[in-house]
């Protein structure tokens, strides 16, 4: 009876741009200057918007919303690696990516002000709305990939995001398994931001990496420095290219850090030390990227000044536009139960409108 090693596994790690903004030229991906600047623009916009949204929430002008600060590279770089015909399947912490996909900040605010209209984005027809049930989105991402192939779209790719805590969900494993068995073009981006609300990664899993979870499904995977925009882009681009070529799915573990609260309803000081947060602040993805761009002569202080001014103006006008919105059709939710209104919904809508009248009468 032989006993021998029949298969051995390893997990790769990639960092191109280190914490000090020093680049490894051998690994540097090919990105056009325009794309680099576009990426930078959206990362800064994401951060500024994030800051503004939280302020608005604190002022009572928006409802609960998730914070993205610190994860801009991990979110925006993968998005740069796909095109408009590809599908973007987010979880709920991908603000920069959604803005890159053509969703407006006004829509984001609408959503977080409690209106589904914020998730209706006909200008971005292949970007799915946020998914709150963790990891559940990965399965429909796999289905979308299957459908695109079945419908003859030979080069469509699906980019799907999932957090570190959500890898404990069955749906994560089912999605990886289905994708692997069907060999469909999905790239899974794992935002390993260290915490599932308060639960740290080490309580979530005993695995040293998340990337290694793909090994069980015989799926290519890699762990990257998630605050290194070049590494995240490069790994994603390679995975997207494999997927387009019909070589099936990949998993990318993007190691990053949620600098702020899980959502505006969360207080992170309850579960983590300031020192830890300060440590990660030194690894900030935008600072690093700005250094890189400056060294490549693509960026300078006056450009930064202009960008800051432009973004401030954009955010300002978006807030104004959002706050000017009114007259939301109260019974709109009855429009979207079924394609065709059932008798019961018809009656309930009438009752709703009648109650509304009563509410108005009562004053």
């Amino acid at each position, binding site marked *: 009876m032989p006993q021998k090693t029949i298969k051995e596994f390893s997990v790769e790690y990639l960092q191109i741009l280190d914490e000090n903004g020093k680049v490894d030229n051998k690994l540097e991906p090919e990105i056009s200057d325009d794309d680099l600047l576009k990426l930078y623009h959206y990362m800064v916009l994401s951060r500024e918007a994030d800051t503004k949204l939280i302020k608005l929430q604190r002022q009572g002008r928006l409802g609960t919303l998730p914070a993205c600060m610190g994860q801009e590279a991990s979110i925006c770089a993968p998005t740069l690696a796909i095109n408009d015909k590809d*599908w973007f399947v987010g979880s709920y912490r991908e603000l920069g990516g959604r803005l890159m996909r053509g969703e407006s900040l006004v829509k984001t605010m609408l959503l977080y002000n409690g209106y*589904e*209209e914020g*998730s*209706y*984005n*006909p200008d971005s*027809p292949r970007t*799915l*709305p946020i*998914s*709150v*049930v963790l990891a*559940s*989105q*990965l*399965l*429909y*991402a*796999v*289905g*979308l*990939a*299957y*459908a*695109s192939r*079945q*419908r003859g779209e030979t080069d469509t790719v699906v980019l799907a995001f999932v957090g570190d805590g959500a890898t404990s969900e*069955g*749906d994560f494993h*089912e*999605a990886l*398994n*289905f994708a692997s*068995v069907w060999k469909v073009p999905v790239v899974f981006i794992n935002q390993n931001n260290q915490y599932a609300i308060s639960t740290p990664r080490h309580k979530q899993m005993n695995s040293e990496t998340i990337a290694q979870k793909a090994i069980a499904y015989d799926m290519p995977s890699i762990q990257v420095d998630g605050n290194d925009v070049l590494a995240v882009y490069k790994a994603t681009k390679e995975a997207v290219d494999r997927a387009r070529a019909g070589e099936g799915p990949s998993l990318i573990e993007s190691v990053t850090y949620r600098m702020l609260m899980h959502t505006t309803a969360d207080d992170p000081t309850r579960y983590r030390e300031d020192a830890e947060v300060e440590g990660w602040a030194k690894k900030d993805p935008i600072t690093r990227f700005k250094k890189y761009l400056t060294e490549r002569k693509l960026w300078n202080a006056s450009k930064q000044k202009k960008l800051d001014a432009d973004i401030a103006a954009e955010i300002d006008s978006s807030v104004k536009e959002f706050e000017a919105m009114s007259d939301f059709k109260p019974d*709109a*939710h009855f*429009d*979207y*139960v*079924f*394609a*065709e209104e*059932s*008798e*019961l*919904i018809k009656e309930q809508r009438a009752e709703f409108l009648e109650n509304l009248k009563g509410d108005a009468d009562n004053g």
Partner: protein
Amino acid sequence: MAKMNMIQAINLALHREMEGDDSVLVMGEDVAVNGGVFRATEGLLEKFGDKRVIDTPLAEAGIVGTATGMAIGGLKPVTEMQFSGFSYNMFHQLEGNASRMRARSRGQFTVPLVIRMPFGGGVRALEHHSESKEVYYAHTPGIKVVIPSRPANAFALLRAAIQDPDPVIFMEPKRSYRSFKGDVADNPEPMQIGKAEIVQGGKDITVISWGAMFHDTQQVVEELQADSDISIELLDLLTISPMDAVTIAESVKKTGRCVVVQEAHRSFGPASEIIAHINDRALMYLEAPVKRVTMYDTTVPLFGRELLYLPSKGHIRKAIQETIDF
């Protein structure tokens, strides 16, 4: 016109829909090579190939979750849950995504998905193979729940379900799969989801049932009518949700009496909902309280005592008689 059993009717409906629409595909555990454990999908693989007839990994959430994506992506997946008792593993996918996508995205993304599942008892099966939990699904806004009772309506309603733009749970009473045959026309009239069928008009009492129980109920009705001059209006509910409250209420307004027969557990079952609709719409026409004949609020026992627990013809007869005599 052909005589066939319900499995054959379901199989024929799948063939027809797959022939008529390239976007229709069938997926589930053992549905392709094996043709399904009940043979509902037999012959499809040979005809439509493995891209449209898919043996999936054994994971219900995986099946329904990926099918949801396929549906968003322009396909019309018809998934099979091998038994309804295993369907709860996909419940979060149905509740969390498929049922909500239309509302969540303001109609930008929709999920024309069918989930077929055999359900119900009386076939001497193992644990988890005998329950009738249609209300789990019916309680969820945004999905439709359909239960056929005969080969003809199984054929027509499954086709309607596949053509429906919204998620449909198609629950198949497995006790009725092969227990009898019925006529299925070559090109029958399409049936509409959401409509109960008045199988027989009457004036003294309305009796409502669906699925496998409908047969037992129909037999009791026939016996009672042969033995007495009670005139019974018999309704086959067919769609659990959205419920055809109007037809139910109109019938009860006419008869003033009603008995609901369900295989489901008593508490919070469809009968409760039917009675609530009668309460809302026809209370002042009632001559007697509405009675329900149901499974008890216990799990369905293994088949050693299963039949003692499921509603019987005797129970149905007694309920009708008591309601008439009230």
